[in-house]
């Protein structure tokens, strides 16, 4: 039974991550906390270890058709490497709950714009 659950969670995570190039963690982290009963921190860490190989495979499939836009990629990665430790620090000093709700509103507004405009 556990194997079946892992299979379904794995396929859905890979499918979403491959289809949208993002969002695998949004599926996998809650699945790992609820189904595998992992604490949040371990679920986030384990989800990264799962999604890394999935993303490599998806990138390989993507690059068979389109080439990589390095002019955009490099500055964004530089920003990401600066932002990641800031996020880790913020997580220690402020509640992510309120931030998550604000972020949810941003997602809903953006989604409506994507769907209808």
């Amino acid at each position, binding site marked *: 039974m556990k194997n079946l659950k892992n299979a379904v969670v794995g396929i859905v995570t890979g499918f979403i991550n491959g289809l949208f190039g993002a969002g695998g963690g949004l599926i996998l982290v809650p699945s790992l906390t609820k189904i595998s009963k992992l604490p949040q921190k371990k679920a986030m860490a384990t989800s990264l270890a799962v999604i890394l190989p999935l993303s490599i495979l998806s990138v390989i499939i993507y690059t068979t058709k389109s080439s990589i836009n390095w002019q955009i990629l490099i500055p964004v990665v530089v*920003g990401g490497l600066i932002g*990641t430790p800031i996020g880790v620090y913020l997580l220690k000093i402020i509640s992510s709950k309120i931030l998550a709700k604000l972020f949810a509103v941003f997602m809903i507004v953006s989604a409506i714009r994507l769907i209808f405009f």
Partner: protein
Amino acid sequence: MNIVYLILIGMVSGVISAMGMGGGTVLILVLGFASELDQVAIQGINLLYFLPIAVFSIICHIKNKNIEIKTASSVIPFGLIGAIIGATIANFLLNGMYLKKIFGVFVLLVGLYTLLSDINWSFLKNPNSPAK
């Protein structure tokens, strides 16, 4: 696009990722609104952006023994199958415009879930009890 602007987008996305709230989704949304790139190209940028940051984070997590290797290794093979199906559909079968709309539906569902989860709904069941 302005390089300072791109670095800022990367930073915001990095902060949100590190807090576990879906930084990749933000990067795709913002690049979609701010650039003329098509959806698949933006998604590819996000996947590549994720790789170095994930490797760096995984190394830290291995040191702190946060990764459940057994669970990860039982999910990865199925994840790879899902990734082949998903990436192939995005890359070869779907028009970028449709992909954008479907991504919008996904973001809407995640947003609603995040907004409405862990709210105490018990006051709806019993109108006489005060909401906590």
